């Protein structure tokens, strides 16, 4: 039996509006720290921006309050002005990152995540269908792995340190790791050669818990701008040998401009259709 009490603070702003949320008392302290940090670290925030954005408006306390709303999954979430600042979470100072989680595939940002809830996310039961928050830490871990693999020479079909570590991370973290991979590969933030290698291993590894999300990532990667990534995705799909990918393959064949890759995609489609 797990023992952890759920505490749900109701945050009240200067405008006397209440913002209920199911977070622990720890979260209250985190929130105060976070707001203080927001107030005091605007210079830090701007200095960490990789690409200065003219639309970034300096935050005021009022705008933060207006930006905090309750969202799905009982989380506190940021909208509008506050969202602008934290949406590019890589630009946040390290001390802010500890209090924020970014859901890569929604417009919403999970703000406060007390430690016990993070543990729960890691240990979400296999039977759960709750949407997982990928988390900065996971993205950073995968990004580092990709970074170290940039100089590697990948030999076709040969297992290597990169593949071993990638598979280990996926088995350990499940769909959180796939979510991080999705964020990095689909938005094309990582080296195309390494992404391509990762995709083929995603296709041939055996891990039923992440099967659906791996297949989805492979399908999405067919639309990436890099031909190498698309090639890796095609190989991954061929390994999975799942006829459910045929619709995306047909769409990808229609769009494909590289003749050789188009032929490869057609071969994979033929393989799936013959099953």
């Amino acid at each position, binding site marked *: 039996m797990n023992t952890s*009490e*759920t505490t749900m603070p109701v945050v009240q702003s200067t405008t006397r509006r209440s913002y209920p949320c199911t977070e622990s008392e720890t979260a209250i302290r985190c929130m105060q720290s976070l707001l203080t940090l927001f107030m005091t670290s605007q210079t830090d925030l701007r200095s960490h921006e990789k690409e200065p954005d003219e639309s970034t408006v300096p935050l005021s306390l009022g705008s933060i309050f207006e930006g905090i709303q309750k969202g799905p999954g009982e989380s506190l979430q940021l909208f509008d002005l506050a969202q602008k600042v934290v949406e590019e979470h890589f630009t946040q100072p390290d001390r802010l990152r500890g209090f924020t989680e970014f859901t890569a595939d929604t417009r919403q940002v999970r703000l406060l995540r007390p430690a016990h809830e993070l543990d729960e996310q890691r240990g979400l039961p296999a039977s759960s269908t709750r*949407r997982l928050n990928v988390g900065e830490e996971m993205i950073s871990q995968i990004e580092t792995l990709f970074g170290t693999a940039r100089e590697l020479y990948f030999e076709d079909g040969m297992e290597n340190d990169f593949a071993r570590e990638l598979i280990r991370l996926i088995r350990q973290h499940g769909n959180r790791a796939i979510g991080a991979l999705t964020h990095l590969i689909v938005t094309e933030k990582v080296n195309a050669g390494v992404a391509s290698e990762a995709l083929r291993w995603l296709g041939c590894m055996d891990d039923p818990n992440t099967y*659906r999300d791996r297949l*989805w990532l492979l399908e999405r990667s067919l639309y990436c701008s890099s031909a190498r990534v698309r090639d890796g995705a095609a190989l991954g799909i061929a390994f999975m040998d799942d006829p*459910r990918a045929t*619709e995306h393959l047909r769409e990808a064949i229609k769009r494909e401009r590289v003749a050789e890759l188009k032929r490869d995609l057609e071969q994979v489609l033929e393989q799936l259709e013959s099953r």
Partner: protein
Amino acid sequence: MSENIGAQLERMPWQAQVLRLTAFPIPSPTTRQAGWWEEIVGQTPAAITSRPKQGSYHEEGPFSNGRLICEIASARIDWLFIPGDLEAEDDGLATIGAFSDTLKTFRQLADQWFGLETCPSAQRLAFGVVLLQSVESKQTGYRQLSMYLPRIELDPENSSDFMYQINRPRESRSGIPNFKINRLMKWSVATLKRFPIQSLRGVGLGRTSFACRLELDVNTAQEFEGQIPREQMSTVFQELTDLAWEIAERGDIP
């Protein structure tokens, strides 16, 4: 909903905080399938966010006495019914209303969606819900939970930090072969605290209130490799909500 359960609707003490329908479609969803929100609600959504490259799409707007969100992302489609008014009730609970009422509304919504020609067939369906039941104190909450958890011996006076989670899978009654349903439930007592945030120094905690909290995730098992026939999606979802209702009413039973 069975007549037996329907007759007991009024006696259900739970308030719903979040209702969720999740579908894992076959083939994977695309953002081209957007626009369902307006088709179902009959109004334009208040906000739409599309990220085609990431394959995600989000529609949101007021619905009934809360907010309705339709989200397409990764390999799934989520419908979420959440509180719209940020003002908490006097008891500190922000809910979308009685579970009985909100479930009816949500089932109607689900049926409308399943009835759309563009609604994809799914490999997996899920019904998630967070329910709250206001109680006077943590001890009262534990006593209340004891009624739902006959196999658990709770000592309300001398214990704290209680949380109980279990999955009790069952075979589906739908007639689909090898089709199991996970009944994942999590029981706890939630503490709600109000505090003024004007001052960033010090935590001025105000009144504290308590609620029994039940989080349910009733879903068709991942191991099922087939496809839920489109004409059976509504029946299967009804079975999921019936099972959730049964747990909320009768507690942790095999």
